[in-house]
């Protein structure tokens, strides 16, 4: 019993009862659905097959095959003219027999084509009074004159209606008559062989055949070699499955620029160590021994040079990175008023100070006496101050007009200068040789470098470069505890040759 509150009208009762009704369908339903879905999927032809272009391509190929095949076929049959001509009326032959039967009261009704053909051939044979079987036919025909055959054919096949045809056949006969009988025998015999009524056809078509024969000025030997069989014609259905080869256009590979290069060159340069006094002035001012109120010093550039090797890699069309090893001989001169060394400052004396002091023993003593340990070093004369560095540049280059005979590169980078030695001509004229192990100069001094290079391509691999360079040290070449500061800079023009590989 339903809840009275659920008692509703007729429709609602039915709806409630059946709206949510469910009944499991039999498995065959899904099987059917699946089969139909599969069937639909199978119907889907590949896209390439649907493409009209593919059809055009297939049609073109089919047409080419047909034309090519036709040419080949006809070309192969040039010396078989009779066959070529006689194949043409094959279709006609199917209709002709009936006509022949009607026109021939003697012909047997209902005979198949072969029999009909035999009938046609039997005409002349009958005229000779013999009744040859089919196997005897060749012999029978061979024994007869061609005129008789032609005439019989005319009479039996076409009757009197086709006088023109008869004339042609007659002319054919007249031509054939000229041949030796033995050869004719073969020809005619071969004509009797084909089934499907083609004998009649060959007779019917004899005018065409003869015309061809006339054109070729046939000899008996040629005719003797022309037996033929009419083959059954089968229509061959060609299914040309054509899938074009997908050719992915590969981007044209430009001849890659030479990846690496190595060069060697020499750079005449102007090297200026740019030596300056760092803390001398104040100490100097405190000393009264000096007549000078201030000290100054100037460095003067002298002819210098660098021998350079370089290796680089071309990163892209324009960009390249290069490095190398160079030996720099930086000649310069220093002229200044000397400087004060404080014997009691925290800075340890170095070999240069000791050397200077050693060369001025009087000064040294005096300084130790009343200068409170301070030492004034008078270098107010021009002394040569020649540095030697091993340089390791790392530069980036941007090349304009690359891969041309002339190209231009803008260079920029950093250079590590490894201090080798400094030869300082002392006031006394002695050469003071200072090396990295003397702890005066920094072992490594960094410099910024920039330049402009003109590249001239000598050959595919060789090139010549002219490079204008400017190098400027970004840190002092002296150790920080020295009272001197030196930030060398260099101008140079480098000549070099380069080999690219």
């Amino acid at each position: 019993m339903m809840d009275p509150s659920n008692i509703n009208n007729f429709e609602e009762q039915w709806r409630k009862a059946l709206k949510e009704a469910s009944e499991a369908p039999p498995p065959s339903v899904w099987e059917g659905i699946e089969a139909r879905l599969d069937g639909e999927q199978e119907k889907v032809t590949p896209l390439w097959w649907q493409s009209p272009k593919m059809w055009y391509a297939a049609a073109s190929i089919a047409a080419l095959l047909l034309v090519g095949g036709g040419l080949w076929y006809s070309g192969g049959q040039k010396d078989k003219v009779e066959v070529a001509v006689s194949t043409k009326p094959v279709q006609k032959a199917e209709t002709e027999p009936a006509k022949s039967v009607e026109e021939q009261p003697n012909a047997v009704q209902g005979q198949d084509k072969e029999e009909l053909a035999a009938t046609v051939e039997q005409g002349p044979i009958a005229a000779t009074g013999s009744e040859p079987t089919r196997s005897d036919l060749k012999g029978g025909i061979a024994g007869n004159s061609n005129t008789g055959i032609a005439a019989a054919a005319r009479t039996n096949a076409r009757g009197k209606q086709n006088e023109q045809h008869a004339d042609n056949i007659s002319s054919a006969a007249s031509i054939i008559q000229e041949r030796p009988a033995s050869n004719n025998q073969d020809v005619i015999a071969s004509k009797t062989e084909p089934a499907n009524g083609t004998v009649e056809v060959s007779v019917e078509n004899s005018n065409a055949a003869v015309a061809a024969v006339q054109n070729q000025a046939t000899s008996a030997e040629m005719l003797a070699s022309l037996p033929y069989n009419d083959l059954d014609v089968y229509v061959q259905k060609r299914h040309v499955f054509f899938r074009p080869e997908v050719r992915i256009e590969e981007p044209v590979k430009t001849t890659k620029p030479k990846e690496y290069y190595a060069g060697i060159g020499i750079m005449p340069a102007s090297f200026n160590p740019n030596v300056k006094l760092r803390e001398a002035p104040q100490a100097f001012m405190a000393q009264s021994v000096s007549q000078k109120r201030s000290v100054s010093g100037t460095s003067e550039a002298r002819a210098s040079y660098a021998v350079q090797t370089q290796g680089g890699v071309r990163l892209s069309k324009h960009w390249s990175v290069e490095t190398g090893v160079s030996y720099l001989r930086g000649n310069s001169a220093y002229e200044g008023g000397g400087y004060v060394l404080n014997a009691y400052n925290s800075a340890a004396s170095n070999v240069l100070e000791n050397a200077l002091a050693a060369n001025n023993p009087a000064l040294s003593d005096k300084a130790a006496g009343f200068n409170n340990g301070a030492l004034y070093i008078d270098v107010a004369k021009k002394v040569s101050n020649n540095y030697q560095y091993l340089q390791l540049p790392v530069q980036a280059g941007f090349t304009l007009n690359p891969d041309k005979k002339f190209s231009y590169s803008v260079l920029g980078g950093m250079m590590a200068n490894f201090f080798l030695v400094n030869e300082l001509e002392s006031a006394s004229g002695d050469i003071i040789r200072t090396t990295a192990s003397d702890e005066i100069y920094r072992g490594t001094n960094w410099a910024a470098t920039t330049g402009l290079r003109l590249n001239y391509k000598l050959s595919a691999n060789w090139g010549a470069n002219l490079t204008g360079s400017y190098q400027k040290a970004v840190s002092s070449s002296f150790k920080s505890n020295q009272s001197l500061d030196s930030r060398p800079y260099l101008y140079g023009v480098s000549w070099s040759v380069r080999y690219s590989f």
Partner: protein
Amino acid sequence: MTFNEQELVKGCKQRNRIAQKQLYDVFGGKLFAICMRYTKNRADAEDVLQDAFIKIYENIDSFRADSPLEYWLRSVVVNTALNHLRQQKYLKELDDIDIHHNGLSDREFTLGNFQMQQLMEMIRELPPGCQTIFNLYAIEGYQHNEIAQMLGISEGTSKSQYSRARMLLQQKLNKEKRFDDGSVQHKQF
């Protein structure tokens, strides 16, 4: 639409066979019951269900997620069933029937004691036109003017056919003698 239904629809749109089967498994029972209501025999119902599911899979792309999936599926099945009936010429000769209302009191009517199968059988035993119109009107909830449009008949025909269906069903119900009370007044006419 629940998440699962969304996934199902997505899978069906991708022609995923597993999703198609799942859709069939979930809704096949209910939809088959609809087919059973609209057809005369089980074989026809199976045919309709098969056709309907093929249509569903083929036209799932036209389903919009803003309406309930089941509603859409039901409508496809009902339309397929109607097409099937048209092919079977069941709906060809639907004429007005002069039937008086039987005066059944709705308030006292209940089908509570009937099995679903029994009710289904009663519907299937109705004349084809009555059966279809009863299904469309009483169960699916279409109005007579809508039914008239759907079946290409007049609204009056729909109404009279429905009245006849209702009367016949009541007779069947009475015959079963399963009513909870004796208020059936089918003998009035």
